[in-house]
């Protein structure tokens, strides 16, 4: 076994170690914290590249590409619970992506968080996140994956609530944590079920792992309620965990609110890596999702579990994209866009398999991190302004940010041929158009492409074109925002190099990454399945490929044109005029702006129910259980009162009386003891005389 397989644990351990060290660092040691985080991330990146080259070499030599290393961890009864890590193409691609994007975002954070007084804490949390995320990626055990899954959830909570002084940030952190916890509960149930059925939580274990033939045969053979196979039940429960983490409908509500965190956090956790963990999880347990029983074990795209994945993804993709159309906050638009793109990844997994979904995950990680960091740069340059209507004409002030942002936007919308997003999205659309079950996900995804192009055009036009509305609002933003803004001049300015350099690198990759997954050279697909591939232009000629590309191009151009027609023709007069859509379709716009009222729906159903039931519990506590306790206590008080009065009036009084009598007797007797010897003598004399008289009388009788 190669050196890198043995030491794969170093990749997550280094950032985790950096987090531990910087947790002990004093608050003002900013340089130490930043260099620890960036240094450890750089080493992780080097190790990840080692891992990637190892897998590449294995693919080239056509030997087994999957190598797992397991070790016993915890003994339960006679069984050992095993943990481990696995190096396969999926892991290799993910560790490189996470450590690379993470490194760039760490560098970017040095500039973005430069004025924050809790700089050290920020890097501590960020490193911990990176460690847990990398651990999640390399895990060969569902249990280890779950542990890391929860740690990334924790760091997400800590980083969303990083500015916990803001009540909205604290509330958003709680919301994110609790909402994902609902999904995690299902995940945990699925995991326990899997353990009880398979007897192991290892993915790959020399043929005995839960994703390998022997266990899958067992899981498919048994059926449970409603004729569902056990594998489907487990897969659906675990998928619900992924729904929570990846912000799919109906648990998407936390992700837009999570934008309260610092922008690098949004870029790293809520765009590139953590929210994609749900997609990665489905990709990891794909054999379980796709397994189909029958005479011979087979993997198909139309199992119940994958249908659910596809439908949830398709609904989410359109749902979130339509909400993004009506948002005004630059980061919220991107958040809804992320939800929508995660939906695409789910469709890709459902209809096309691991490679299709993962390709979009990787490309999306790069261009969405780019967009978020561009948005951070814009926010930074506009003195913490986030409302896109109060921006405008920023391309004059921030040329680098504008150029990179435009690249990210075109990649996200799927500008034909040049950008990575086009290829990955096209692969999804192509797979969806060939799905056997229904064509509806394909149509939904196409509508999603239109909406994506439209809302991104709207955003870019608002932010970078037209007239600047910043000066009008700067007065109050100065007084409202903190002292940071005071140091800057009042005009928007380009961000420092430490922030723009990561943007440029990501922009370059947003273009280039598309090259590894074109139909002519589907290297990525082949790599994930451990095969070799070669350049072949006939890939385009496969049935439907060119048609889908043409269709998505037309739809993209339509969205772009619609956006330009509505928002670009004439520049917006002032930041207070209603949106063009709002003027035309006020009602629909309001519905979209409030996110289909999902939040208030939850407020009025789930949360209201929880509030009501907690009130009922409170009432029961106070009056039923509390009442019973009170009655018992009253009884005891009554009994003790009775026994007290018995004591006072019967026992004590009798005792007192006896004492008094004895005392009186003693007093009476003590009078005899006068201390006068002669009176004693007198008594003796009298007694003696009486005795004598008695004797005399007695004798006479």
């Amino acid at each position, binding site marked *: 076994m190669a050196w890198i397989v043995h030491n794969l644990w170093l990749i997550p351990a280094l950032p985790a170690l950096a987090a531990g060290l910087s947790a002990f660092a004093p608050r003002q040691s900013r340089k130490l914290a930043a260099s620890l985080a960036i240094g450890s991330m750089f080493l992780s990146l080097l190790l990840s590249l080692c891992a990637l080259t190892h897998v590449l070499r294995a693919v080239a030599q056509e030997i087994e590409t999957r190598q797992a290393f397991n070790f016993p961890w915890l003994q339960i009864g006679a069984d050992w619970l095993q943990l481990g890590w696995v190096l396969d193409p999926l892991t290799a691609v993910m560790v490189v992506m996470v450590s690379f994007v993470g490194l760039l975002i760490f560098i970017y954070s040095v500039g973005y968080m430069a004025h924050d007084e809790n700089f050290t804490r920020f890097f501590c949390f960020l490193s911990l996140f990176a460690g847990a995320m990398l651990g999640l990626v390399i895990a060969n055990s569902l249990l280890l994956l779950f542990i890391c899954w929860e740690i990334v959830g924790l760091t997400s909570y800590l980083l969303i609530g990083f500015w916990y002084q803001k009540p909205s940030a604290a509330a958003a952190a709680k919301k994110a944590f609790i909402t994902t916890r609902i999904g995690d509960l299902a995940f945990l149930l699925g995991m326990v079920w899997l353990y009880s059925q398979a007897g192991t939580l290892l993915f790959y274990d020399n043929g005995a792992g839960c994703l390998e033939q022997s266990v899958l045969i067992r899981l498919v053979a048994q059926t449970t309620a409603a004729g569902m196979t056990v594998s489907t039940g487990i897969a659906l429960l675990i998928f619900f965990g992924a729904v929570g983490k990846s912000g799919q409908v109906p648990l998407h509500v936390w992700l837009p609110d999570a934008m309260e965190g610092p922008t690098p956090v949004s870029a790293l956790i809520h765009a590139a890596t953590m929210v994609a963990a749900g997609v990665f999880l489905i990709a990891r347990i794909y054999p379980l999702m796709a397994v189909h029983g029958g005479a011979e074990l087979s993997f198909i795209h139309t199992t119940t579990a994958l249908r659910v994945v596809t439908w949830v993804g398709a609904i989410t993709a359109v749902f979130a994209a339509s909400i993004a159309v009506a948002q005004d906050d630059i980061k919220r638009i991107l958040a809804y866009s992320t939800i929508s793109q995660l939906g695409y990844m789910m469709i890709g997994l459902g209809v096309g398999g691991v490679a299709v979904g993962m390709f979009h995950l990787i490309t999306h990680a790069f261009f969405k991190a780019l967009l978020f960091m561009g948005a951070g740069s814009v926010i930074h340059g506009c003195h913490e302004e986030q409302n896109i209507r109060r921006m405008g004409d920023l391309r004059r002030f921030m040329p680098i940010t504008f150029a990179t942002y435009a690249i990210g936007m075109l990649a996200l919308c799927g500008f034909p041929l040049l950008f990575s997003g086009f290829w990955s999205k096209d692969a999804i659309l192509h797979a969806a158009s060939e799905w056997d079950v229904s064509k509806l996900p394909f149509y939904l995804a196409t509508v999603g492409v239109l909406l994506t192009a439209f809302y991104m055009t709207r955003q870019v036009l608002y932010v970078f074109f037209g007239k600047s509305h910043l000066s009008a609002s700067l007065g109050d933003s100065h007084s409202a925002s903190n002292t940071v803004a005071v140091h800057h001049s009042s005009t928007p300015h380009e961000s420092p190099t430490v922030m723009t350099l990561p943007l440029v690198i990501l922009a370059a990759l947003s273009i280039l990454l598309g090259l590894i997954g074109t139909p002519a050279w589907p290297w990525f697909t082949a790599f994930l399945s451990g095969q070799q591939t070669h350049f072949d232009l006939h890939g385009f000629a496969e049935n439907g490929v060119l048609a889908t590309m043409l269709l998505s191009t037309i739809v993209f151009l339509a969205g772009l044109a619609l956006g330009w027609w509505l928002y670009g023709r004439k520049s917006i007069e002032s930041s207070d005029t209603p949106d063009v859509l709002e003027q035309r379709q006020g009602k629909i716009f309001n519905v979209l702006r409030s996110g289909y009222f999902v939040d208030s729906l939850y407020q009025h159903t789930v949360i209201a129910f929880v509030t009501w039931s907690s009130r009922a519990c409170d009432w029961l506590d106070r009056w039923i259980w509390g009442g019973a306790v009170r009655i018992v206590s009253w009884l005891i008080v009554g009994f003790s009162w009775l026994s007290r009065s018995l004591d006072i009036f019967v026992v004590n009084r009798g005792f007192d009386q006896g004492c008094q009598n004895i005392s009186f007797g003693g007093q009476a007797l*003590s009078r*005899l003891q006068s*201390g*006068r*010897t*002669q009176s004693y*003598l007198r008594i003796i004399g009298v007694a003696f005389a009486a005795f004598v008289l008695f004797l005399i009388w007695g004798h006479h009788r």
Partner: protein
Amino acid sequence: MTALSSYLFISALLFAIGLAGALTRRNAILVLIGIELMLNAGNLNFIAFWRFGPHPEALTGIMFAIFSIGVAAAEAAVGLALIIAVYRHYKTTDLDEISSMRG
């Protein structure tokens, strides 16, 4: 009146005088004297019952009387020593004044 009863009469008279003295006197020394008188009345009884009893030849009675007088002498010595000690403490020998044994 036989000789015995006249002795007994004298003895009873002596005892009564001693008792009266012991009861009526306030001075401790006089009370002691009264007690000595009663003791000697007892001695006289011993001698009388012995002399006119069934065995006058045995010297039991006189021995009793001699022992009794010896014991009385020792007792008087102790009693007088007590009175002196009491006097030193209370600066009086008046028995009514000395009542610290009162209960």
